[in-house]
């Protein structure tokens, strides 16, 4: 009895080792290079230094980009969270014909009309609205794209909150708005926070939309800034770029770890089968 299980475990380890090595190798570089005295493209470490980070903070474009990323991400979070919150409340508490179909269609749309296939009409739309090369265009476009998923997840979450408190309050004579704000919101704060964090991570990481819609270096968020650093003219400052990339990545990792620690994995949208 023990032998087959041990055997299978050993086999697992043997098969997993190269796979894990495959996954981890490119990532190790990200955590080693920024601290290295003479950073290079391969994983090397010859002395600890924080110099590369200093150079990041001396780079005006880099700092500017951080500010831009923050402005964009926070705006998207606020916009999406409030709108999705209201709409999900309705979807959850107010049944109507075709509700589920509508939701499903919206999520499907957002998966299909994503990425590059949508960028031409998105661009032309922003062009017509005069929003090209403006942060507002990026904010609105990102929000529109993330909204269906946020809606879907929030509605699911709201469904799991018992309605008894709201019903009681309604019977007591509160208005529906009061019910929503005073009773429902506090109950659902956990889900709302998770959505806010997911939306933040998505907007912070997004590259394509600001890449397509923004043209001025001063408006680039970090994602586009990093791309210009390593793809543009001249010899790239590996130390600075790797340090910058690490700083940029940490909030995202942190966000996901937080979500997992406090709320469990179940929000990786779609694991419902």
């Amino acid at each position, binding site marked *: 009895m023990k032998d087959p299980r041990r055997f299978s475990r050993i086999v697992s380890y043997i098969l997993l080792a190269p*796979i894990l090595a495959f996954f981890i190798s*490119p990532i190790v570089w990200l955590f080693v290079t920024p601290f290295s005295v003479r950073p290079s493209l391969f994983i090397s470490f010859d002395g600890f230094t924080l110099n590369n980070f200093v150079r990041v903070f001396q780079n005006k474009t880099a700092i500017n980009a951080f500010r831009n990323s923050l402005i964009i991400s926070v705006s998207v979070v606020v916009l999406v969270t409030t709108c999705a919150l209201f709409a999900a409340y309705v979807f959850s508490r107010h049944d109507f014909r075709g509700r589920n179909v509508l939701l499903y269609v919206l999520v499907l749309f957002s998966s299909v009309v*994503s990425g*590059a296939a949508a960028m031409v009409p998105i661009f*032309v739309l922003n062009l017509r609205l005069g929003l090209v090369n403006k942060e507002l265009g990026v904010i*609105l476009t990102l929000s529109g794209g993330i909204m269906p998923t946020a809606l879907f997840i929030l509605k699911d979450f709201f469904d799991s909150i018992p309605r008894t408190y709201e019903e009681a309050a*309604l019977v007591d004579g509160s208005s*529906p708005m009061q019910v929503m704000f005073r009773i429902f919101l506090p109950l659902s704060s956990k889900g709302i926070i998770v959505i806010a964090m997911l939306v933040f991570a998505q907007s912070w990481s997004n590259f394509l939309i600001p890449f397509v819609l923004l043209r001025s270096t001063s408006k680039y968020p970090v994602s586009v800034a990093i791309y210009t650093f390593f793809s543009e003219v001249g010899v790239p400052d590996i130390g600075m770029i790797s340090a910058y990339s690490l700083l940029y990545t940490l909030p*995202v990792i942190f966000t996901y770890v937080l979500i997992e620690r406090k709320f469990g994995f179940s929000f990786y949208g779609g694991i419902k089968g």
Partner: protein
Amino acid sequence: MPALFGVDRVRKSLMGKKVVVLLLIPALALIFIFLILPGLWVLKIGMTNETLTGAKARNPDFVGFENYAKVLSDRFFYNALRVTLLFVLGSAIVGQAGLGLSLALLTYRKRKLRSFVQSVVILAWIIPEVVVAYLWIAFLDKDYGTLNMLLSVLGLRKVNWFYEYPLPTIITFNIWRGTAYSMLLFSAALETIPPSYLETADVIGVSAWRKFKDIIFPNIKSYILTDLILITLWTFNVFTPYLLTGGGPSFRTELLSIYIYRTAFRYFKLGYGASIATIALLINFALAMFYLSLSRRKKA
């Protein structure tokens, strides 16, 4: 029961149409304007010859299906289509799903191991795409990349990965990038199989392959389908390889998404770019419908 019923009526009438609409409008408006509208409008733009420079920037003409006809005889389009199909087949269907399933199987019922493996694999998934692109550019650099340094230590020749094997390289990259999702999905799927099935199989002494074929696979079929739909759609539209190869060398890694980008934003041909994009969207829809019909059939 009757009390609840009464409350229902009260709830519905109190909430009122006005409030409902008010609460729904912001979200639906945003979705409509920035998601649905572009998705439908692209068809119309594809029927014009609008550009950003030249005379057609000022006065684009309506050209009906002329662009679409052009696309169907466009050598670059077929190249992009071929690259994309190979990319999706290799990195999503075979790669991510296959690897994800394997990882799920290898870590089945080994909680701590699974946690560890998941953390590593998920890291590859959540790190922002720009950073991931740079990591791979560094990793595969033809002179100083970690992989090549390793090869030379082993006495093998350094390989200019992005030049000599462009398509396999980005396929491998994309497998690395997206496996996490499939792995998570399949792990959850495996959890739904009652453990007694497999324990019984172990007692009887069934081989691993039979276990998979007769017990595991039938139970997770619907999950496999869901996974395939989603990762196919995502992979079809992915743009990250642009950051790695720019579509080259010589258009050998030019996915449809990159071809659209080149047409619309390098040559400013918005109309023609839109027609290619519309065709891409239609292919997406077709794929989605295909998978849905498969799942419908299975359920029946």
